[in-house]
């Protein structure tokens, strides 16, 4: 777990060198990159973004791990943005933003900001559904589905 935190905060540190607008997006990009790598087990993967977030798009475009695709079927990983939770994808989907996470009950997890802290939550049942096994360091972030609604 401490590695995840180290990564999370090192992202915060790294991002501090960039303009403030892009900072959160960069942290998000780094977390997504790590997640994609750990889920797919590959050093690069095609990702589809459901929704429009120009800053995120620009940030991911620079990533060496994530290859953005406009064809969800071809993608190995789907990012769901707020307001785009209606359509369900056959690929592991990950919500970005609190509302997207709250509304996307079929997502494997979500990443959002609360009280100035990045909040990464992964849902055990959804991960299992896709046969995703994550390293031990994710343990703290993996919760049961029923715990979401308590």
């Amino acid at each position, binding site marked *: *777990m*401490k590695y995840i*935190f*180290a990564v999370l*905060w090192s992202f*915060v*540190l790294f991002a*501090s060198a960039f303009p*403030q607008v892009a*900072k959160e997006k960069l942290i998000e990009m780094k977390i997504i990159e790590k997640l994609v790598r750990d889920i797919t087990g590959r050093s690069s993967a095609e990702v589809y973004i459901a929704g429009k977030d120009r800053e995120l798009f620009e940030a991911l475009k620079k990533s060496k791990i994530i290859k953005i695709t406009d064809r969800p079927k071809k993608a190995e990983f789907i990012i769901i943005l707020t307001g785009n939770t209606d359509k369900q994808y056959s690929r592991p989907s990950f919500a970005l933003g609190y509302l997207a996470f709250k509304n996307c009950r079929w997502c494997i997890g979500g990443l959002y*900001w*609360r*009280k*100035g*802290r*990045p*909040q*990464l*939550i992964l849902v055990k049942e959804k991960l299992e559904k896709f046969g995703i096994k994550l390293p031990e360091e994710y343990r*703290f*972030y993996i*919760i049961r589905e029923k*715990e*979401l609604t*308590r």
Partner: protein
Amino acid sequence: MTYKVHLNFFSKERVLNLIFSLVLFLFGLLVYTYIPTVEEFLKNSIIKAFISVYDEITDNALSAVKKEASGRIIYRLKTDKNLYNKTQEIFSIISGSQVKYLYIIYHDDGLYRFLIDLSKEDRAEAGEIFVPTIKEIKILSKIDKTGEKYTVYHEDSEEIGATLIKPIKENGTVKAYLFVDFSVQLIEAVKKVVHFFGILSYFVLIVSIVFIFLTAYFFIKTVYLKNKAFVDPLTKVYNRNYLNELLKFIDINSYAVILVDVDFFKKINDTFGHKVGDEVLKKVAQLLKSSIRSDEDYIFRFGGEEFLLLVKKDRNDRGQILNVVNRIFDSIRNFDFGLGDSQVRITVSAGIFNGKAKNFEDAVKKADSALYRAKREGRNRYEFYIEDADFPYLLQINELIEKREVFFEYQPVVDLNTKKIVYLEALIRLKNGKEGQWKPDKFLDTIKGTFLYSKLTKLAIEENVKLVEKYRHIKIGINLLPSDVANSSIKSILCSVDRKTAERIVLEVVETEEVASFSDITKHITQLKKAGYIIAVDDFGSGYSNFDYLLNLEMDYLKFNSGLIAEAVTNRRSERLIQMVVQFCKEFNIKTIAEFVENQQVCKKILSLNVDYGQGYYFSKPAGIEKYVDIALWETNGK
């Protein structure tokens, strides 16, 4: 060249500057080194002070909520909407610009959840999962164990600067936590203050470095300039400036004072030119330097061709000083200066003072007196100053001159045919109460080469000029050495005399010392002749006399040496020589004078040799001026 004493390089001002710069530098360095620690300390102190205010307020608020919840905060806040609202109300007074977020979380089976969010923005729903930072998780487990409140600092967050986490206990167990997130602006404000100190320390550091560099620069510059000011550019030995500085630091009685003078240096300059003369001085300086101990002794260029050596005395030092002087003489005598194409040996004379002196001037005066003796005794030798020999005598002479115990007797030079006075030779005397009068043979040799001699010469000129001005029909002869004629201050006194007076003064240039440059002396004498003075060459025929005078000097009188006149009575060669010189002088309209005319026999002899004038006891013994002021005694149409 390195300085053996520090002189005043480290002036009070410079030392203070240096200390100030160093203190400033150390302070700057200290602050610079400890900036992170100081920053951390200042930051924590300020934040702690700030947080303590909120600590108290939140304590009160929590107490109020606990009271409302009858101690069961978690359960009641989950179930009691009224309490939930009441809590919002109670905590609403806390939220402000500095408190960014305020909320209570509780521990729920490995997860943290929001119990109530009291923040004004980014509100979380009750029961929503909260993922604390790794630092916070560690603190939370600490709080679980200790039950104490803690503050967490968020170094990397741009939103929250610090979080005060307070435990909420139920039945003595920590059940929930109140999170007070302070905005990053607070930290930033504190950081700005601390940063100011950082900048200040940088500034102090830079200023102190600049100060140190400036001090070092001025120090080096001073050393360089002092070096220039203290070292003789030609010989590269110390000069009088350094000597003056050094004298502030040393006891002169710990040193033997040796004055070394290059013999016949003027001749070297005149014969080989000044360039060669300079080379000789350089070499002599090098040889002197190599003859003394570099760590204890000093060498200075004291005058034109004069060097002063300060040789540190040992306890039984006479032998040691002798060794140094012998080394000097050996090295100089054996060194081939190789002037021009021929091998040239240079010699020096030295005067040594090795006793107790009142001060430096006293020591130099004594060494100078010994040097003079070395010169007088034939040069190329050294003489120690002997306390009983010259010095008290010099003091006595000085005292007599100071008290104006000086008077003149006059001996006439008489026309051998008319027996009338042509002029009176002024003969100086000192009045010594105990011993009566002192004649020149008693004191003149002792004071030759010292300031007393020139003092006495000036006095003789001034007194006799007054007499000539007083008695308008008399002529007076004043004895001068060639060196007096070349002495600028004596010459200026002579030149200031009006022409009519000068025309009645005979300057008898006494040929009793070696003359380095006849051409120089001739030039000076010619100038005086042009000023109206009558020029006589005294003591012609003595051991020192030189035919250069006869050939090149436009003299008016030639005075034969007394020895030559005395010999002429019995010695045919002397008689013949006088005859020939008289004949030569007549051709060139030079009047000849015979000294030592003691009796009629000598008078007859010189008359037979056609000598013009005579002087001696036969005519008159030296006497006071009153004896000769009668105008009838005087030749009226003589030269």
